[in-house]
């Protein structure tokens, strides 16, 4: 019934993940992360596939998934921009920079560009406060941001 199938490579990875834990339900977040990173979205079909792996209901998977901000029910862009707006970044002028970034991408905060290249999210503290203002794009942290630096970073991403 599941329209979502893990690839062979993913199946191998899942074996490794499951081996870390005495109870398979602990693999919930790792499996959701695996799907999110591969698909840029966690679809209902993927939730079913995960539930089959972990012997729990799809509803339970959804109840966990919806708790965490890094899983998305709508596909996010190729580049996920998390722009920190918490206090250390606020004190260093992040609000104007976030506005600048949204304007440059021609989207509102929270949206994805029509070519599905960028998604821009306001984010709480990302633990790089000594380089504030900062943002995270996919796995990379960028600190000491200025308008010019943001432009350079965004332009460099293919």
């Amino acid at each position, binding site marked *: 019934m599941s329209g979502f199938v893990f690839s062979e490579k993913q199946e191998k990875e899942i074996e490794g993940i499951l081996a870390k834990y005495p109870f398979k339900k602990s693999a919930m977040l790792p499996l959701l992360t695996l799907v999110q990173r591969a698909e840029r979205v966690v679809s209902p079909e993927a939730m079913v596939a995960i539930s089959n792996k972990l012997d729990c209901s799809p509803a339970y998977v959804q109840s966990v998934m919806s708790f965490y901000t890094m899983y998305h029910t709508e596909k996010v862009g190729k580049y996920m921009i998390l722009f920190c707006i918490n206090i250390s970044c606020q004190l260093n002028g992040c609000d104007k920079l976030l506005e600048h970034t949204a304007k440059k991408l021609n989207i509102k905060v929270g949206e994805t560009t029509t070519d599905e290249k960028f998604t821009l999210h306001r984010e*709480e503290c990302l633990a*790089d406060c000594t380089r504030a203002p900062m943002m995270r794009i996919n796995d990379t942290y960028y600190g000491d941001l200025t308008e010019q630096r943001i432009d350079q970073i965004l332009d460099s991403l293919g």
Partner: protein
Amino acid sequence: MTQILFKNIDMKDLHTMKVYEEQGGYQSLEKAFAQKPEEIIAMVKASGLRGRGGAGFPAGLKWSFLAKDVFPRYLCCNADESEPGTCKDRELLLKTPHMLIEGMILCSYACQIKTGYIYMRGEFHDLSFIMDKAIEEAHAKGYLGKNIMGSGFDLEIHTHLGAGAYICGEESALLNSLEGGRGEPRMKPPFPAVEGLYAKPTVINNVETLCVVPYIVNEGAEKYASLGTEKSKGTKLVSISGHVKKPGNYEVVLGTPMREIIYDVAGGIANDNKLKAFIPGGSSTPMLPADMVDVLYDYESIAAAGSMLGSGALIVIDDSVNIVEATLRLISFYMHESCGKCTPCREGTRWLYQIVERIMQNKGQLEYIEKMEDICDNMAMKTFCPLADACVAPVVSSIKYFRSDYEAYFKNTPVGSV
């Protein structure tokens, strides 16, 4: 200044086994295995090491609370670093992952634990690769796995990533998350030392706490305890951010004057503005006004001044800042991160947000301040976990010390801007 954790922190390739070992890494293991597990616990107790994640609970005591003769036991390293202003663990994980592994081996040996997890916040995905590589290297060297260095002691360590939830830094929420559930805190007792991960006795320690342990085993408890004050021993990593000339992570001996940390270590206030306020231990700790800058940087002195040393995140705020604006940002954070399980927290954070927002729209009245204090009263100490208290801290302290910033709105003359 004495440097324990940061002594070699910027050394090239310190994250590799080769360089870490050249600097004396993993030498504590042989010393530890020559002693009984309970002797290591006694040593950590005698060192006076306290939890560096925020609560400052004595580490050795925490280890000794594990339910007797119940196995398996687990170690969870809390690497969910999310307290606004805090970024010291990130630097340790990035630059010296082997120090954490060494600390985890010592803790596990002392507590007779065979499985350890490093719970890292989901945004640290890149660091998990570094950590996994370090674990692999430690395996290859025989520092992890079966019968480590012929001691008969076995240990496996695994990384585990969260997925974006501040609350998972709270230890019982972390356990629920690691078990594959929502990161909602548990009712305590039972404490994790009795019923933790998979309902088994569990030690949960912050990254920095565990990283200190190799030094204690190598150099002895007395040497560590000779640093610091009567009750706050050793050194502490401080993440200094905000309006300072040289923001950064620094290691300071506990008991150092705050003035020295802000004006010497961090180079003073940026743009030659004046200090208005500082948050000594992360956004969950009450802010203090500039005239309290002579407080000493240790657990007791900061508590006596009405705040907390917390996670060691020192946020410096200059006099161009409107404290109401900064406070609203923090309330917004707690509102966003409240897991929603306890009503005072779920509703209280939202009400506070709505009230302060109205004040900032010049729609407030003086009575709003009283209402905020009343809401705070109904939030503090009334929930499963301290997230509600954490939201109350900046609100109450901002009213206490910067009431005039609120009142200016009622007169339509707001003070400065962030």
